[in-house]
């Protein structure tokens, strides 16, 4: 088991190098000149421009730029500075709590609501509850995220006035609508997955055995049926938590939240190479760590799986 974890941790190295290189290359290849973008309409002397280019290594070939950047990250934990002179680490520290809170709210929503909907639909298969759950899930999955966002903002934000529609000034309440939007598609997937898994489990021989042992229906469903059905769902939830960072880019922009997702969006527009690479690297790191945890959890849930 320990050997397995060490091997997995070692795999992080090539993954991180590849990820940063790709992101760095994509930002590098974007058309336009960041210094021009920085100066905007104001005139900037050639000398100042040359100095800035030198400071940010913009005249170096691509691989040299990348090498200098990575060297700074590895040797000094220096993720670079923005064109305004702010350390990127500072920006990450500021945005991270917002994004993590958003992800936690979304994750909680999809895990709890998805599970409840899935279990009800499976236990009361073909009933009204099942149909209702299924139809709502299809709607949640089929509607574009942006449409769900605007719909919720309009209904619960503007018309009913229950939740704020932008920013994070109201604390936790501000996270509820964006959290639901971020979770909508996955909630549908979780519920449908759990429904079909649980229906299959409830028809299995070992559930029949549990019934023959005189167990109550509720115990048969939760202890014997659900335990097995949860395995693929947990795997999906883990993988989804990791990809949620990507979804945060859209949701944070729509809800105007000062998180890392919105920051990435703005930085790409401003060609702030260092910020984009810094944050995306963090996302990638988060993804691989969560995936490792999911694989370990998978082994804990299913005794038939052994890593060695």
């Amino acid at each position, binding site marked *: 088991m320990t050997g397995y974890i060490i091997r997995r941790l070692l795999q992080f190295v090539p993954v991180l190098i590849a990820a940063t290189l790709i992101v760095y290359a994509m930002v590098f290849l974007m058309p336009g000149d960041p210094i021009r973008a920085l100066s905007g309409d104001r005139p900037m002397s050639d000398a100042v421009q040359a100095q800035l280019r030198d400071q940010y290594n913009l005249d170096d070939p691509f691989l040299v730029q990348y090498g200098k950047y990575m060297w700074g990250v590895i040797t000094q934990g220096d993720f670079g500075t923005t064109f305004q002179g702010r350390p990127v680490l500072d920006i990450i520290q500021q945005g991270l709590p917002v994004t993590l809170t958003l992800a936690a709210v979304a994750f909680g929503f999809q895990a709890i609501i998805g599970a409840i909907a899935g279990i009800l639909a499976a236990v009361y298969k073909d009933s009204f509850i099942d149909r209702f759950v299924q139809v709502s899930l299809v709607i949640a999955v089929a509607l574009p995220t942006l449409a769900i966002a605007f719909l919720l903002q309009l209904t619960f934000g503007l018309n009913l006035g229950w939740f704020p529609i932008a920013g994070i000034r109201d604390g936790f309440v501000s996270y509820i609508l964006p959290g639901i939007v971020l979770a909508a598609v996955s909630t549908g997937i979780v519920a449908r997955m759990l429904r079909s898994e649980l229906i299959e489990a409830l028809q*299995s*021989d*070992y559930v*029949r*055995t*549990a*019934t*023959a*042992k*005189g*167990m*109550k229906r509720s*115990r048969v469903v939760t*202890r*014997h049926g659900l*335990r*097995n059905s949860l*395995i693929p769902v947990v795997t999906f939830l883990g993988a989804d938590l990791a990809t949620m960072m990507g979804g945060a880019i859209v949701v944070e922009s729509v809800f105007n939240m000062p998180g890392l997702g919105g920051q990435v969006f703005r930085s790409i527009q401003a060609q702030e190479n260092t910020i984009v690479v810094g944050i995306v690297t963090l996302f990638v790191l988060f993804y691989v760590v969560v995936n490792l945890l999911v694989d370990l959890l998978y082994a804990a*849930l*299913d*005794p*038939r799986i052994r890593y060695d």
Partner: protein
Amino acid sequence: MTTAPQPTTPAQGDGDFTSTGPLLEVKDLHVEFHTKQGVAQAINGLNFTLEAGETLAILGESGSGKSVTAQTIMGILDMPPGHIAGGEIRYRGQDLLAMKPEQRRRLRGVNISMIFQDALSSLNPVLPVGWQIAEMFRVHQKMRRRPARQRAIELMKRVGIPAAEQRVGDYAHQFSGGMRQRIMIAMAIALDPDVLIADEPTTALDVTVQAQVMRLLKELQTENNMGLILITHDLGVVADVADKIAVMYAGRVMEAADVYEIYARPGHPYTKGLLESLPRIDAAGERLNAIPGLPPSLTDMPSGCPFSPRCPYATDLCRNEMPELLPIVGEHTSACHYREEMHRGHLQTPEEAQA
């Protein structure tokens, strides 16, 4: 676990059971399945009785309704599509089919218990086997975790699992087929049930292990004075352990008798056919006499005797009128119009009669 035979008392179940009447009695049971192809009549008027300490073998080929019978007695038949169209199942005089679901649940696993054919799929793959055995004590006797686990270890020892203390936390896939079936047995006998239904308990096992498992079942039955219903298609298994045999065909009992009687003097052409299809050591090298044809479709039963399309002795009477299960001598009953002649060995096929 005590080794002395125990008197038959209703175990932990609640409700008062009159001691009159047999331990288990199935009367005119009808079970149907409602499918898209129509109504499949899986059980058509089934009758049998079981006494404490007795082994009844229910014998029949696939689709004869053996497993449906077991599931109906246990109350674990999937309904729908299954539907109990009529009849009674009396346990110590009380009709199980008239009971409230909750009352019936309390009997399951406690008074009436069941062992399934495929132990690997019948045990929960993600729960330790010891936990699954201990669950019986924890749920039905509200026992605490540690003593329940201790009882599980004792049971595992009783059914012959080596190093039970070390293996109590293992999972089903870590055991061999025979050991898995022993675990199923441990779970089923945990609460000393009066009735144990074993649905093809040895079919998935290899021959040497089959004999061990059957011997274990027989031992446990004697110890606890259980009534054992052994569902099988294996005539070899039956001869060793059964007291009585009920031969099922198309959801009916065709013939019922004690085991020696049925092997010596079958009173039904179907039983005779089954016996003749067995390989025999004293008739080596000869071709086996398989019964020609297939069992009837349950959605489209022939009129009259369901075996008549395959029966070499069938007459117009057989094709038009369903024979009832009637006695030949003593406890020996048969559902054949010509049971007396069959029993005496005088029955001739229509061709033989003309010749």
